[in-house]
């Protein structure tokens, strides 16, 4: 039993190492030149050589991403609550939201640059724009799928809309909300890095762009790995928060 659990814990590490080994082997066997695809070992070594610069840029990207993500959470919860608790608002907002979400956010970066100039602000806004949608949808879904019987029970006790929202709506929407956070945080990284790549002079996106212009592919890949690691770390943090705060929704699946 214990052994099984340890194996489960080791699985993600093993699969990651396996992927790197496979990657290393493919590059070496097919003799792929480093300016096309560097080996992971090379990327890690170069990453270490530049670790001070990477650290500075990564810190900046993390800060930008979290700022955009934080705005997305606030905005997403408020809008999701509105959309989820009123049929009329749902009807009015839904096509707009879907349409907006279909617009590639990279196309918006030049507009943002026109408005706010180059740098951190457009990156924060891009991270926000790309990550709020899943939060809105999930919060709204959690609120809107309240059982009609339960609503009747509460209304016939004299509950106001606010009572129903606080006592049942929000707690019920929590698992949906946390699930959306995991999606949103990874999207926020996509947003901030896109914007940094297009219009910034700081951040991992900028670092990768400038490295690739110098044909330093190992450094580009080091940047990608750093983003991936930050994404995984953030995802895991929200995963833990989710499991702690909505245990009731994961019943019967304690190891999940």
């Amino acid at each position, binding site marked *: 039993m214990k052994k099984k659990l340890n194996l489960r814990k080791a699985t993600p590490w093993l699969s990651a190492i396996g992927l790197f080994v496979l990657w290393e082997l493919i590059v070496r066997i097919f003799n792929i030149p480093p300016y096309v695809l560097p080996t992971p070992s090379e990327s890690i070594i170069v990453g270490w050589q530049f670790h001070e610069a990477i650290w500075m840029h990564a810190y900046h990207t993390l800060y930008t991403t979290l700022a955009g993500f934080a705005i997305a959470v606030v905005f997403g919860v408020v809008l999701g609550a509105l959309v989820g608790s009123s049929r009329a608002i749902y009807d009015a907002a839904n096509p707009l939201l879907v349409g907006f979400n279909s617009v590639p956010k990279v196309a918006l970066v030049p507009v943002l640059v026109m408005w706010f100039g180059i740098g951190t602000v457009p990156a924060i806004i891009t991270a926000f724009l790309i990550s709020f949608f899943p939060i809105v949808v999930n919060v709204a879904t959690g609120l809107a799928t309240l059982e009609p019987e*339960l609503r*009747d029970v*509460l209304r*016939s*006790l*004299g509950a106001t809309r606010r009572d129903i929202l606080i*006592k049942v709506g929000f*707690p019920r929407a929590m698992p949906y909300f946390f699930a959306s956070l995991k999606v949103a945080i990874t999207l926020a990284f996509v947003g901030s890095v896109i914007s940094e790549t297009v219009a910034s002079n700081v951040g991992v996106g900028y670092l990768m762009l400038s490295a690739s212009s110098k044909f330093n592919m190992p450094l580009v890949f080091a940047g990608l790995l750093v983003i991936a690691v930050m994404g995984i770390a953030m995802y895991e943090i929200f995963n833990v928060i989710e499991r702690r705060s909505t245990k*009731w929704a994961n019943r019967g699946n304690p190891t999940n």
Partner: protein
Amino acid sequence: MSKSFVELNDVKLRYSEGDELALETTNMKIDKGEFIAVVGPSGCGKSSLLKLVSGLMPPSEGNVIVDGKEVSGPLKIVGMAFQNPTLLPWRTTLDNVLLPMEIVKPHRNRLRKHRAEYEESARKLLATVGLEGHEDKYPWELSGGMQQRASLCRSLIHEPDLLMLDEPFGALDAFTREELWDILQNLWMIKPFTVILVTHDLREAAYLADTIYVMSKRPGKILVERENTLPRPRDQETTFTQPFTDLVHELRSHIRDVREA
């Protein structure tokens, strides 16, 4: 004016303008503390009747009077239980039962200060339905029958004048169901409240109700109003007596007529 607690006067219901009637002209008079059951084929508007009386749905024509006042919006103190126990999975059984106290006035303003007192009464109520020792469990840790008991407690904790039951025992096995009949009858006999029970179980209606209404298929209409004078408390033995089986047979033949009509 009569002294009925609930009155339906020439009530008709259509779900939306231009639809055919869901409920044909219906008249009912229910006394305070009376236990009535409504039986009928599925889809006959039994559940709509509950919504009309509790004010969750306005009648298209006619009026509904509860406690001397015409119903114009959701009544504020009705207890309800459904086939689906609808307990909140993030709350313990005790907290689920206490939910109405967080909503109904004046309890909602008193609850925080007098928490212990309220918990005590909730525990007592849970004990009477056989849920002693399960107060701190979550709904998913309880069996279906236990969840339904808790749901029943939740509908009664605030001592409502009016209890609406919409096939509350429909999803339970026969033994649990009959056990819950006794529990409900006991609670009701200790402190009578007015009950409207919607069911398609004729034995259930005969076991529990003072008056049984048989409804036609859609558009729903009350065809028969049958007094049930079997002595209380009724128990397992009652269900094997001649008057009980006669009553069930009679109800069954009404339903058969309805279905063939």
